[in-house]
């Protein structure tokens, strides 16, 4: 594009400056996201929405590791989110554990499910993977549904309350929405930091190599199957944390947190925001939930709008919001 002479040099300069800003944001991406999310509740209409965006941004972020960075479409990530929720919920309701072990249990539970599901699904390649993961996640859904003594079955698991959280020097209660937001914020920022480190590591480079050309990655001597499995499990851990936080946020675990529609939400958020981009999942979660919040006040037919918007993005803006912004900056 650079060989086309620009008539308006002013525009070009401001474009370059903007691109410079974007570049420096990209360089300090963890800091940028953390700072933005720190001030985020101030610009949101109410805190619960901010908490939702935080949690689903994390969910989409974890999902994006597999979909955006490794190029493998999974339709089973609801299983990790849901199991993260249920394990945390069960730890608090049935085992009487406090919030920290409960969250850890949620993440670990999601990790175990990801190991099993990944082990079964990872050998199926390409488009097959989406179907297999979807079916396996639906299997988890029915399993949890059946174990109603532990999970509450159709009604979901109720009474997931973390109560007073005492950090020794500081005490607060999750009933306070602002406290809840910043409580979740700490976990999300740690997760984002880890995520960024993973992407920057040699392992992260192998993931992108697999996305670009699986056979070449294999020919270079990388164990593609094992790498895929690792990525799947790591992605499951992040989604499990998101689910775990969601259980504390809602105080209940609805059975819908395991349904494949939720996997679809992760897919849609990633694509809306921009798959394979660092900020994309959060941008996508924000766009998705804000739109949902606005449209559901006007009509009950939100899925109609969602489906239409999603189709428009697939057809005309496959790079997503943030991806398109990046693309536009590069010009």
């Amino acid at each position: 594009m650079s060989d086309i002479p620009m008539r308006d040099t002013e525009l070009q300069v401001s474009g370059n400056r903007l691109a410079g800003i974007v570049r420096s944001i990209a360089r300090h991406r963890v800091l940028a996201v953390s700072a933005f999310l720190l001030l985020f509740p101030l610009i949101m209409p109410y805190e619960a929405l901010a908490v939702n965006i935080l949690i689903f941004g994390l969910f989409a972020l974890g999902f994006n590791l597999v979909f955006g960075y490794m190029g493998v479409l999974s339709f089973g990530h609801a299983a990790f989110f849901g199991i993260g929720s249920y394990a945390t919920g069960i730890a608090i309701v049935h085992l009487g554990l406090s919030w920290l072990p409960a969250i850890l249990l949620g993440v670990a539970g999601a990790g175990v499910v990801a190991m099993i599901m990944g082990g079964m699904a990872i050998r199926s390649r390409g488009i097959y993977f989406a179907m297999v993961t979807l079916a396996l996640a639906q299997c988890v859904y029915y399993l949890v549904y059946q174990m109603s003594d532990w999970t509450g079955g159709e009604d979901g698991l109720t009474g997931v309350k973390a109560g007073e959280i005492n950090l020794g020097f500081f005490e607060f209660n999750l009933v306070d929405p602002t406290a809840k937001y910043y409580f979740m914020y700490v976990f999300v920022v740690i997760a984002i930091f880890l995520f960024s480190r993973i992407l920057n590591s040699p392992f992260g480079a192998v993931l992108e190599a697999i996305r670009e050309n699986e056979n070449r990655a294999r020919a270079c001597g990388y164990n593609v199957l094992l790498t895929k499995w690792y990525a799947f499990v790591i992605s499951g851990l992040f989604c499990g944390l998101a689910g775990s936080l969601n259980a504390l946020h809602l105080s209940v675990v609805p059975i819908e947190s395991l349904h494949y529609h939720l996997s679809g939400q992760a897919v849609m958020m990633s694509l809306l925001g921009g798959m394979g981009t660092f900020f994309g999942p959060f941008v996508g979660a924000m766009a998705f939930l804000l739109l949902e919040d606005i449209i559901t006040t006007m009509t009950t037919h939100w899925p109609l709008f969602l489906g239409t918007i999603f189709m428009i993005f697939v057809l005309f803006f496959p790079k997503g919001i943030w991806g398109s912004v990046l693309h536009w900056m590069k010009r």
Partner: protein
Amino acid sequence: MANISLELLALQTFTGLALGSVFVLLGIGLSLIFGLLTVVNFAHGAFYMLGAYAGVFLIGLTGNFWLTLALVPVVVGCIGLGVERFLVRPLYGRGIDYPLLLTFGLGLVLVELVRITYGLDGVPFDTPKELRGATDLGFGFFPTYRIFIIGITALIVTALWLFIEKTSFGLVIRSGARDPEIVRVLGTDISKVWLIVFAIGTGVAGLAGVLSAPMRSVIPDMGTTVLVEAFVVTVVGGMGSLVGAVVAGLLVGVVVSITSLVAPELSDLSMFVLMALVLLIRPQGLFGKKGLMG
């Protein structure tokens, strides 16, 4: 478990075959579309639901079950034509995931449109007079309507087989599945073939919908679980394999039906256990070709 008689087992197997017939119709459509277009149709459940509602609409209009049965696949197939032409076609060559994502969005839209038109509650769909009651099979009485479903599925499968194996258009379909590039070089407009195959696939899904309307309740969400079941069938049978879809469909139907007799609480899970076993032993599915998915 010893008190389960042989007759009961035979009847339950027959129930499984009737259930499996619906799976077969769904699996064939899904497999046909995938085999040629390499599109995983996530809206397949929605087309199934559309079939049931098209049945409700047409039977209200004509009052004739047989006419409805003949018209529903045509109506749903025509919707499929439009979807392939205007929504799926722009995505060819842009990566295998995009048509899948698009049809996922389409599924949401179709379900919501039906919800706006017909509401959330179930719509009754009566079994036609001629097919009510039960028929003696020698080892017990069996609902006539279910025998009818098995029969009509056998008819459709045979017709499709003849169409694909014996007609010249079927020859183009088969060669298109093997190498679309060469077909195009030889002067055949492959995009027309894809259009028609997509219409056939969705039309058969619509037929499955109207056929199961008298057995299940007709609600906008009826396609949600069906989509997963159809996926299980294609994974077990092998993607893109029509024989696989038939065998796996019947197998899944019988397995679900027998489990619900022996251990009712596990009936929802049984098909997934079957799928997991197949994945562990034969990841490409019972009739899948190795490397097709590569």
